């Protein structure tokens, strides 16, 4: 008995609600649902509706996107939208840096080192376990070029302690 009473109450309430919704266009909840549907996939955007006033909050990646979402909400809600309060915050996307990789293939690294070392005939390089060791004599001005080139190959380590530096 209790159950049927409750069902009746719910039915009655929803009848009243839908009646009032008909009278003044869509209810806030329906309007909110409609706008949310139009913004499907925009997980960072939140929609609230209060007496026909649409409040947009959350984050977007650009000013254009902010305006775009406002116009989507306006179009979706059409004449049921009394006003729009655009509280969307523009923030740059957070880029997750690529993980650091270190060369673990001596054959590949060795070949790249040999190619690069052709420009440094006064020194010799060898590769073992991802570590590049260089020996010989080199002018100081060239050391930074050598180190930059070798570091670009992502070795485990560059050992220049065997180089005699000429001033």
């Amino acid at each position, binding site marked *: 008995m209790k159950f049927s009473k409750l069902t009746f109450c719910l039915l009655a309430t929803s009848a009243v609600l839908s009646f009032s919704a008909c009278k003044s266009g869509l209810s806030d909840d329906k309007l909110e649902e409609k706008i949310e549907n139009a913004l499907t996939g925009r997980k960072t955007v939140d929609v609230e509706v209060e007496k026909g006033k649409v409040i947009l909050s959350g984050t977007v990646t650009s000013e254009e996107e902010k305006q775009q979402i406002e116009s989507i909400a306006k179009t979706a809600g059409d004449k049921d939208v009394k006003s729009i309060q655009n509280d969307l915050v523009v923030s740059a996307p957070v880029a997750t840096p690529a993980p650091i990789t*270190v060369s673990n293939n001596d054959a590949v690294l060795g070949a790249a080192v040999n190619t690069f070392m052709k420009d440094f005939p006064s020194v010799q390089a060898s590769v073992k376990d991802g570590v590049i060791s260089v020996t010989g004599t080199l002018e100081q001005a060239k050391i930074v070029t050598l180190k930059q080139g070798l570091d670009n190959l992502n070795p485990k380590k560059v050992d220049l302690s065997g180089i005699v530096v000429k001033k």
Partner: protein
Amino acid sequence: MSLQEKYKVLLDTAQSSGVNDLNYAEMDGVLQIRGTAPSADVKNKLWEIYGNIDPNFQTGDVVLNVDVATEVPGSQVRVITENSNLNIRKGPGTDQPIVGKAAKGEIITLISKANDQWWLVRTTDNEEGYCYAQYLESV
């Protein structure tokens, strides 16, 4: 002293001068640093600081691999060889035939990057081919 403390000035400068995707980690006793500098000037500045902390890079406790954001396809790059001409080759590798040369200081166009070492370029004489990226710097 940890390596991150030893190279604190270098890491702080990288952060404050707008190096993108900055990432560093100590691996096998070596501080590995990666990132993309907003300009060649910033990259050079970082190398200067690194050289001040570890003169002539004798300790070998850092691998600093920072490239430059402005060195993108379509951009102009300057040839920065010591004094010789830069060879332009048919393909990416020193075993490839030389198809042209670019003079030191010449400004050429970066077309694409075959990999970190070999970039496809075009000279003002419309010579097209691959050259070693180490000798190119964004303008």
